[in-house]
């Protein structure tokens, strides 16, 4: 009688453990699948963003290329620098702190 009772207890305990672990396992699998799916989605988004960044960088380089800027500068009709003067500064003109 005592044997049967304790056996039932072990059975019940084992069944509970199996059930809870199974639920936990399913929950974990679900989480893992969800996270790996999310990671894949984010990876795809990162790839798209990287492509867009590269595209913007390319467009920026193209728009700011000297070849394209030249006509814009010419349209501004800026005054051309006639002469550049350099100031001769000799070391003995400075006082050391």
């Amino acid at each position, binding site marked *: 009688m005592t044997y049967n009772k304790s056996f039932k207890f072990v059975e019940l305990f084992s069944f509970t453990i199996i059930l809870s672990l199974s639920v936990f396992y399913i929950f974990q699998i679900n989480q893992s699948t969800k996270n790996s799916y999310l990671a894949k989605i984010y990876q795809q988004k990162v790839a798209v963003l990287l492509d867009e960044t590269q595209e913007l960088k390319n467009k920026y380089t193209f728009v700011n*290329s000297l070849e394209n800027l030249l006509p814009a500068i010419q349209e501004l009709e800026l005054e051309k620098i006639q002469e550049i003067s350099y100031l001769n500064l000799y070391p003995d003109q400075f006082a050391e702190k």
Partner: protein
Amino acid sequence: MRFPRLIIIFVLLFATAIFFIGRLFFLQVVQGDYYQALARGQHSFLQETSGKRGQILFKEGELLATSKTQDILYLPFRKISGDAVLLQLLKDILDDPLEELEEGRSMTIVLESEQITQIKDLDLSFLIPQKRTVRYYPQGEMASHLVGFLNAMQKGQYGIEEEYQEELQGETGVISWEGSPYGYLVSKLQDNSVLEMGNDVSLTLDYGIQFMAEQLLKEAERDLAISSGTIIVTDPKTGGILAMANYPNFDPNNYRQEELESFQNSAIQKLFEPGSIFKAFTMAAGLNEGKVTPETTFKDKGYIDLGGSLIRNYDRRTWGEQTMTEVLKKSINTGAVFVEQELGRELFLKYSKRFGFTQLTGIDLVGETYSRNENLVNGCERDLASASFGQGIAVTPIQLVSAFGAIANNGKLMKPFVVSSIQGKEETSLKSSKQVITSNSASQLTSMLTQVVEEGFGRKAGIPGYFLAGKTGTAQVINEEGVYDPDKTIQSFIGFGPTLDPQFLILIKLDGPQAKSSSESAAPIFKKMAQYIINRYQIPPTVESL
């Protein structure tokens, strides 16, 4: 009775479970790879590809060559040909006559972003937009001969793209694509980001100077009607190329539309007779061997008779008694022959070799050519005399720049190079030097060449406040009949500055300009180029200009 029955059921269930587990183990573990491959083969395809190609950058990091992603659409002829409504719909969406499709061939078309949505809205299994990576040159035609291009086989062709193919290309590998039930590619199961990228290659090229050099060549085409031209700018102390411009150039983004000959990099592949520029090297040899000094005099009769037609001066001038400095200032042919005769055959040829005129410079660009100048090496006295003032000797612009750089660099000949670093790591293997004349001879010659710009034929190259050294060169061109064309010349100017501490060396070479001599054509262009560099690098004047 109950107990054995339970045991039997349990044993049966256990045996069945063992059987299934065993079978599953056999299918999934023992033969798992085989069945996995079999299943994958039914819905996915493998494609050989490589990681993203490295970029090519100017000295300050401006982009010269990079990669970009394109949206493309494959149009299968067999699926579309029978459906006139679909064909018209595609023509409307793609705004393209779709000629290849009309001619019975499948085709691939590049899509704009709004077209992608319209194509997806059609919801057809055989019309799925894809992405592909292509090489892109955001500067268009700029430095096209130097950079080269990436061909359809994804291999670099010409210039840096070919020379540095191994460094630029990404890791090669295989990626898998998912396929639709009809066999059309649907999407990548993995992209090439899993493969290692190629290395970025940084050049010694200065963006601003390169642009200016190309602009000056375009101006020369407009004002002097040149058929072609080359400008090279270097740092004479290192041999690093700051600009290498050719006119005409091509657009590497559309290289398929170009003629094969337009890919020739004239700066390293086109041989020409340098003309009077070569007198500087003859003089360098004379000074270095102690055969002449800047003050040595000789008497010019206006011609020299070495058999055959007489060797005469430019414009048939007669100068009388002249120093060696005057020989360079007035570019006297007979004076150069005088120095060559003082040197003798062996020494003259020795210095021609030392300055590198019979070998490659070794620049890190694919396809460099050179002439062994055998007609000179094995030639008669007259051939050597002509060579002393730059006729009958063939050189490339880069050979000329490299050799002239030795005069600017205290007699040290530097190997020219265009790549400064790969993936941020400095390329030291490219730097090498060789002493070809003494520092003293180089200084003497520099002083003589400075007078060419200050008072001689190179006056139009001078900039107030700066000492610049240079030499003009006007050479005749041999025509198709093998004789010198009286109407066509190559006009050049080569020089460096500031002479006390050279920071740049410039070669201007103009093919067939509508000008009498290089002092009228190439020298003023040199001045503009030098002025730009002086302003860009903020080089202070050597002397106070009045």
